[in-house]
């Protein structure tokens, strides 16, 4: 099974149209050209669909790197498992 980070990386690769290999935990709107507000929304929606979680408005604001996004998903998955 892929790690959460790898899955988020794959989603980001689809959404931003860049190879998964070039996406790191530090990748952000500054390093990824296509990461605008509309693609940010698509990233959020794709993550919610794929992991079956709902992200809070605060989460979505803080989700400014791929690493941060993966960490948020982990947190949501744990809190819903309890």
């Amino acid at each position, binding site marked *: *099974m892929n790690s959460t980070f790898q899955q988020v990386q794959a989603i980001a690769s*689809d*959404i931003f149209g860049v190879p998964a290999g070039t996406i790191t935990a530090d990748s952000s709107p500054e390093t990824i050209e296509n990461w605008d507000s*509309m693609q940010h*929304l*698509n990233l959020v*929606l794709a993550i*919610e*669909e*794929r992991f079956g979680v709902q992200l809070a408005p605060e989460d979505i604001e803080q989700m400014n790197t791929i690493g941060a996004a993966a960490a948020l998903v982990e947190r949501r998955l744990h809190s819903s498992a309890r």
Partner: protein
Amino acid sequence: MAAGHDVINLREEIDRLIAEGVAEKARSRMTELWRREPGSATASFIASRIDQIRDQLALVKFKLAILRSFTVEPIVLLLRTEAFVYGIDLEVHVGEFNTYVQDIIDANSFLYRFAPTAVVLAVRVEEAAPDLASGFADLAPDAARQAAERVVRTFEQSVSVFRQHSQAALIVHSLAPPSDPSLGVLDGQSEVGQSGLIRKINAELRRVAESFRGVYILDYESLVARHGSQRWHDERKWLMARLPISADHLLPMAREWMRFLVPLTGRTAKAMVVDLDNTLWGGVIGEDGATGIKIGPEYPGAAYQALHRALLDLSCRGVLLAICSKNNLDDAMEALEKHPGMLLRPKHFAALRINWTDKAQNLREIAQELNIGVESLAFLDDNPFEREQVRSVLPEVIVIDLPKNPLEYAAAVRDCPVFERLTLSAEDQQRTAMYAEQRQRTHVEQTFQSKEDFFRFLEQEAELEAVSDLTLARVAQLTQKTNQFNLTTRRYTEQQIAEMAKRPDWHIFSIRVKDRFGDHGLVGVAIAHDLGEQCEVDTFLLSCRVIGRTVETALLAHIARSAAERGCKRLVGRFLPTRKNAPARDFYEQHGFQRQEGNGTGSLWALDLNNSPLRSPEWIKLKVHDGGKN
């Protein structure tokens, strides 16, 4: 997540196929990827790949404008991929938030310059009638009623102006009543409560839509209810991004739009071919026998009966049913004819292929027998192996992925947009019976000495008339659906036909045919356009079920005669070849026209009306109703 590696490999394969220039194969793998993993990420992936290979694929181009009061962009992303799967290359223009009224009123707005084929008006109660949404509790009953009337009036005026500027189809979202009305249970006690008024608006929207051509209501209230209002909506996304629909329901929204777009593009299925064992009934007839198979009002047979009912519903919409099954004919027929639990009987099927031949071959034969293209067939089979075989041999066939659980069969069929119809003619509803009559005719034809003998025996009666309000829908439908005997294959919407009919230099005829075996209904259309002393045949088409019975000669003779009566000296017509219309190729030549010019894209033919030998065949009894100008 078990599929994780598979779908990653599939993406790599797609990119490799694109790099190698094998676009069709890449397309079928993209469809496969979408089937396995539909969603925003996959849609982004596919959208960027479509951009790379668009020019190498035979896709139907379609322009859609969306006027809206909320964020639709993520839904549009999914919609474009759904459309791609159905062979449609969708170009979408999305209007600004809540500017729909001014976009519609302003003749120079981007909406009209974009020249869409269809427009979706996606507006919520909250924006269309804010008083009826959050502010309802403060509202006096009279003010509430007036607010509702205002919504309807604005809508009616908007549609009316829209029709002056555009002939595009208009798809309007109805309004969804609130899941938590301001007055609580009290709201349910009054016709003019919050929910009551919103439902009243919806009823009025339907009335207005019905009074215009090509205006359709998308029943948003039912759509939301089907999925559950609380699950459908996502208040957080609304506040953050003006997106009121939750991530899980963006795809159902896109698919609901598809149910309108598929029939508008004509990418519909004309026939549904079904398997028998474990599809139309539970079990295997050859092993379990008629007493062992499961079909009836009780579970588990009830699941299959629900599928029968769904198929009967399709049949009422004019979709032909056919059987393709690997079985001994006698075993299968016994169950079909005699099993008490069956709702579908042999008379419901227009073609049967019950044998041990491979299914792709049988599907080809069924298409031939029904006189339709293979791309007009949908295929329903519980066996993934058969589905895969058909997909690989006949990629044009619409293969429906039947879920594993028979309880979900009926829904899988009902959800399929290729069976949607936006109008229904009397012909649609009787189609299966017509095909049964056709089988008899073919049988009789084989026993006659000469063609003429057969034509006389048929006792054909044809009624010719100018297009009218009553026939408009069917005439437009025929221009959209007829592929084989169609000389120019020009597609027209109802609105375009209506516009043409108003002009004095255009003449639109339809022909109805019946014979001793039954009524074929309205089966032919001819459109003539006067250009001074010359009359040009813009459109000439005939449904394939009457081709070759000289009805075409009667129709052409009528155009020639009426053109001569209007003082035209020459009748000209074009043959524009397509992949399908070879049956019409020699039509003008056979009727004494002289070839004027020809090149790769078609040929032009002319007939001198002063000494034309063209006459309607004596064996057809012809009635002409001249609707005034023609």
